[in-house]
């Protein structure tokens, strides 16, 4: 059913699309990418998804999606549940605030935003580490930033894949959030 060009199924399709990409990202980050690439430096595909939400889905659904991406990451990373959920929500908020002040469009700018997102994420993790545990490891912070750097390189491709998947599902709606 169409409502002003928007079908009722579209929000659900968007949710399923992000979940599918999220599960795929977790599987890649915990298996193949770990083996093929640089050992401790894991490309942060989940961060790319979070930034995508921050740019394309600026509503409550987007915030919740970012939180759940982080929570999903917590199930496969580290021991302290909530850490990545906090970091991803923080990244979403920062990207949202940034996008309201800057014109962000195209592959290069999306890559730069992901790089910035990696910085915000590292900042959030360092803050939590200093507040709730015995501090942070410099090697871990470096790995996090390098993972973000690799994520920035692949970000334009992930954005294109998401946009094309949306179009394929007939849910693409420029300038209008549907999640």
């Amino acid at each position: 059913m169409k409502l002003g060009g928007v079908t009722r199924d579209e929000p659900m399709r968007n949710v399923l699309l992000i979940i599918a990409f999220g599960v795929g990202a977790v599987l890649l980050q915990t298996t193949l990418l770990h083996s093929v690439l640089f050992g401790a430096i894991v490309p942060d595909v989940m961060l790319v998804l979070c930034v995508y939400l921050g740019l394309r889905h600026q509503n409550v659904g987007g915030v919740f999606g970012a939180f759940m991406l982080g929570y999903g990451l917590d199930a496969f990373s580290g021991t302290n549940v909530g850490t990545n959920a906090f970091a991803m929500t923080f990244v979403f908020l920062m990207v949202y605030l940034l996008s309201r002040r800057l014109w962000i469009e195209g592959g290069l700018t999306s890559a730069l935003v992901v790089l910035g997102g990696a910085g915000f994420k590292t900042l959030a993790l360092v803050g939590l580490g200093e507040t709730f545990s015995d501090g942070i490891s410099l090697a871990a912070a470096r790995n996090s930033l390098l993972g973000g750097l690799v994520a920035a390189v692949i970000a334009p491709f992930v954005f294109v894949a998401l946009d094309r998947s949306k179009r394929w599902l007939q849910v693409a709606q420029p300038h209008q959030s549907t999640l």
Partner: protein
Amino acid sequence: MLDFLRRYQVPVSSGILLLLATMLVSANARGAGRVDPLARVILSVVYPFQLAVSRVSGGILGVWGNYVDLVGARAEADALRERVRVLEGEVAGAAEVVAANRRLRDLLQFREGVDAELVAARVIGWDASGWDRTITLDKGSDDGVVEGAAVLAPEGVVGHVFRASGGAARVLLITDRNSGVDAVAQRSRVRGIVQGRQQDCELQYVKRGADISAGDQVVTSGLDGIFPKGVPLGVVASVRTPKKGLFQSIVVEPLVAFDRLEEVLVQTGRPPPAVATDLASAE
């Protein structure tokens, strides 16, 4: 009020979820019991896919590795190219079987030397970020794996289980910064805590002047109630005595090659008492 909420829905909802996440982290950090309402469920749902991807990617990487190894030989003997291609798959499979056989034999020998109930498990995933050092195993509470169980390899200690679902378990490696293992230097019996530092470990709380030097082997003391006594942890790589402070700064290089870990043994019964088998001294 409604207009305000509608206008600032993203910052307000972000604030609420940031607060919720902070409460989760805070509750877990206090150690009053793990608060993870969904993490175990997510692990249970995703691990079959992880297992499948791990097997497929392992196969692809194995074949690719053998392919790369054979490129030189193929260039030298062009006439044998077709023959090599036919044999390539067989060689890849045979090499993989031989390597797996060797690893499993080592595991079996190690298992016989440890006075504890152990179950073999396969590594199916690594930590999803570069921030922490954890792995996922294909055995969980259905196989008797419980949270807190020791995880060992023929070379020494791998870590301990911190989360177990029905068919999978997550392990905190000894190189993670949140890991601490009660340890003793095998030669001088000097005690300390082996704390993770991402790539290697540090033997902490060893007093200035205590008898320890580079090359000393560090083994578990068995006093933490998790690991059997005498299992190797690593070798002292360097010892430094700072100008200030009570303790020495000791770097320990783990014996286990974590990045190449494929199979491990997980303790399923109660941890053995501190007087159990001392593997290292038995050697």
